[in-house]
C-alpha cells in the first residue's frame, strides 16, 4: 500500500515560504512525476514526504495514518538520491544489505533478498565492488537496489537520471518504468526533464514557485493545459504562445499552438513568415519562423524530408481544433 495524502502542507525556511499550502492525493500504485523549473520546490516537497524536512504546517498521511511527525525510517518509504548517496566504504552487497541489516533481518534472509535484487537489476557481477569502482549507471542501479530490497510502500526518486548521459538515461528510464509495472508500487519521481515526465508518469504534478499549477495525466496536460505556464512547460519543443492583435482575433489574451499542429501550406496560409534556423532530426524537422507582428519566432514541426532553407518564405496554417486560448489571468478559456 502506498496512498499518500498531503493536506494544506506548507514549508517555510525561516521567513521564506518555499511551498505555500498545498493539497495533493497520490493513489496506491501510481507513478507520479513532480516537474517544474529549477528552484520551484520539487526536491523540498519530496523531502517533506520522505520526512527529511520538517513540515511547517499541514498534515501528511500515508495509507490513512498521520505521518507528519514520523521519523523518515518509520514511514516505510525508500528514496533514491540524485547523487545516489551510496556508502563509499561498503561493497555493493553491503550497500544493498544495509537497510535489511538495520531492520534486523537474519543473514540468510538478507543474502536471499540481496541476490534477488541483484538479479533483477543485473548487478550480480559487481556485488563485491566498491561504489567508486562502478560507472554512473551501475551506481544508479545499486541505489535502486538498495531501495527495492526494503519493499517500501512507495519509492521516492529525486532526479535520479540527471547525472547520466543521454543514451543511458533513455535506458534507465525504461528500466524504472518496467520496475514500476512489475512491482506496482507507488513511485514519486522528481525531474525537470519534461520528456521523462511525459514518458513515465501516470500522473504529472506541474509545480511553479511551490504552487501546483496542474495535476493530470500526461495527455490531459498536453491536450488541455490549465494555464499559460503549463502550456509552455509541457511539450517539446515548447508550445508557441502568441499575444497581441493576433490573439485578440480569437477573443483571448494569449493563444497557443504546438509546433506539431501548424501545417506548412503551399501558396497561402493563415500566417506567412521567413524561415530562420532549421533543426533536422531525421524523422522531423523543426523550423524557426519569424512572422511579421509576432514577438517571438514560431516553431514549426515538419516532416523529415521537407526542404526549406534559411530566408525562404513559408505559409503556416494552425489546426483550429488544437488552438489553445488563455485569458488575461493566463487561465485557459474552454
Amino acid at each position, binding site marked *: 500500500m502506498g496512498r499518500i495524502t498531503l493536506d494544506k502542507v506548507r514549508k517555510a525556511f525561516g521567513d521564506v515560504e518555499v511551498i505555500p499550502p498545498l493539497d495533493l492525493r497520490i493513489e496506491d500504485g501510481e507513478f507520479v512525476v513532480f516537474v517544474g523549473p529549477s528552484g520551484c520546490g520539487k526536491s523540498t516537497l519530496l523531502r517533506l514526504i520522505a520526512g527529511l524536512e520538517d513540515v511547517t504546517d499541514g498534515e501528511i498521511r500515508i495509507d490513512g495514518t498521520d505521518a507528519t511527525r514520523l521519523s523518515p*525510517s518509520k514511514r516505510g518509504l525508500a528514496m533514491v538520491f540524485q*547523487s545516489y*548517496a551510496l*556508502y563509499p*566504504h561498503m561493497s555493493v552487497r553491503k550497500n544493498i544489505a*544495509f*537497510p535489511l541489516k538495520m531492520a534486523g533481518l537474519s543473514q540468510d534472509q538478507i543474502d536471499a533478498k540481496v541476490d534477488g535484487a541483484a538479479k533483477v537489476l543485473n548487478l550480480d557481477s559487481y556485488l563485491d565492488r566498491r561504489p567508486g569502482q562502478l560507472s554512473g549507471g551501475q551506481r544508479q542501479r545499486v541505489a535502486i537496489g538498495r531501495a527495492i530490497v526494503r519493499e517500501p510502500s512507495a519509492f521516492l526518486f529525486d532526479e535520479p537520471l540527471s547525472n547520466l548521459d543521454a543514451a543511458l538515461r533513455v535506458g534507465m528510464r525504461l528500466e524504472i518504468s518496467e520496475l514500476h509495472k512489475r512491482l506496482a508500487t507507488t513511485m514519486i519521481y522528481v525531474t525537470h526533464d519534461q520528456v521523462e515526465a511525459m514518458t513515465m508518469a501516470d500522473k504529472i504534478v506541474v509545480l511553479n514557485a511551490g504552487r501546483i499549477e496542474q495535476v493530470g495525466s500526461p495527455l490531459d496536460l498536453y491536450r488541455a493545459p490549465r494555464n499559460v505556464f503549463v502550456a509552455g512547460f509541457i511539450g517539446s519543443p515548447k508550445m508557441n504562445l502568441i499575444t497581441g492583435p493576433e490573439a485578440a482575433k480569437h477573443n483571448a489574451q494569449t493563444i497557443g499552438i504546438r509546433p506539431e499542429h501548424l501545417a506548412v501550406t503551399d501558396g497561402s496560409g493563415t500566417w506567412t513568415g521567413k524561415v530562420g534556423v532549421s533543426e533536422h532530426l531525421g524523422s522531423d524537422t523543426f523550423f524557426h519562423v519569424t512572422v511579421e507582428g509576432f514577438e517571438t519566432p514560431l516553431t514549426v514541426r515538419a516532416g523529415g524530408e521537407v526542404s526549406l532553407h534559411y530566408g525562404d518564405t513559408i505559409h503556416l496554417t494552425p489546426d483550429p481544433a488544437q488552438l489553445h486560448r488563455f485569458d488575461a489571468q493566463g487561465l485557459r478559456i474552454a
Partner: protein
Amino acid sequence: MATQHSRSAARVMMAPAVFLLLVWMLVPLILTLWFSTLDYRPMRGTFDCCEGLGNYTRFVTSSAFLSSVVTTLQLVGGVLLITVIGGILLANLLDQPIWGQGVVRILVIAPFFVMPTVSALVWKNMFMNPVNGLFAHLFKALGLQPIDWLSQAPLFSIILIVSWQWLPFATLILLTAIQSLDSEQMEAAEMDGAGPISRFYHMTLPHLARSITVVVLIQTIFLLSIFAEIYVTTGGAFGTRTLTYLVYQRVIESQNVGLGSAGGIIAVILANIVALVLMRVVGKNLDA
C-alpha cells in the same frame, strides 16, 4: 611539471633547499653517531675514542632503559587514546548547529597555542596542587580527600596535561573530516532505518578512518619526544622517565655525552620502528 625542461628547472631551483635540509639533518646525526662511539665526559675531561658499541650495551642493559621504553609507550598510548576518542566526541559536538559556533571553535583550538612549559606549569600549580589547586578545592567541596596528583598518579597526570594540549589538534582535523561527510549519505542511512548510533558507527567512523590515521601518525611523532611537561612537573621522578628524558639525564645530569648519544640513536631507531609498525597497522587507511 610536465615538460622535460620545467622538470630540470624545478630540480635546479629546489637544490639549495634540499642541500640545506640535508646538512641540517645529517650534521647533527653524524655528530651524534660519532659521539656515541666515544667515552666523552666533558666534566672529567675524557674524550677517548673507540668505545665501539660499549655505550650502546651500557645504555640498553641499564635497569632504567626498559622501564623508560614502557613509560614512553604508556604515555604515547594514553594520550592517543584520550585525544582520539575525545577528539571524535568534540568534533561531533562542534559539528552541531549551536549558538556562537565560531567563537566556540576558536576557544577549543586555544590550548594548542599555549607553550608546553607554560601549560604544564599552569596545570601543576593551578589545578593539580594538593593544597591550592582547583582539583583540591573541588575534592574538598565534595567532601573528598584531595589527592596529590603529581606524586600519587604522576604518569596519569602528565598524560592528562599532554592530552589537553593535543586534543584541539585531533578535534580540528576530525572536525574538518566530519564536515566533509556527504549529507545525502547520512539522510540515506536515516531513511534506511539507521538510528543516530548506527549512523555514527556505520557512516561517521568509517569516514573518519583516514583522519584518525593522520592524527595518530602525526601525534605519535611529536609525543615520542615529549620533554618539557615532564621536566616541569615531576623531573622524571615517580616512574615518569621516558626514553627522551633518560637521554637528557645521561647527557646533562650524568654528564656522559657518549652514553647519551648512544641513547639518542637508540631512541631514533625505536621511533622508526614504532612509525613502521603504525604505518603497517593503520597506514592502510591512507590508500584507497
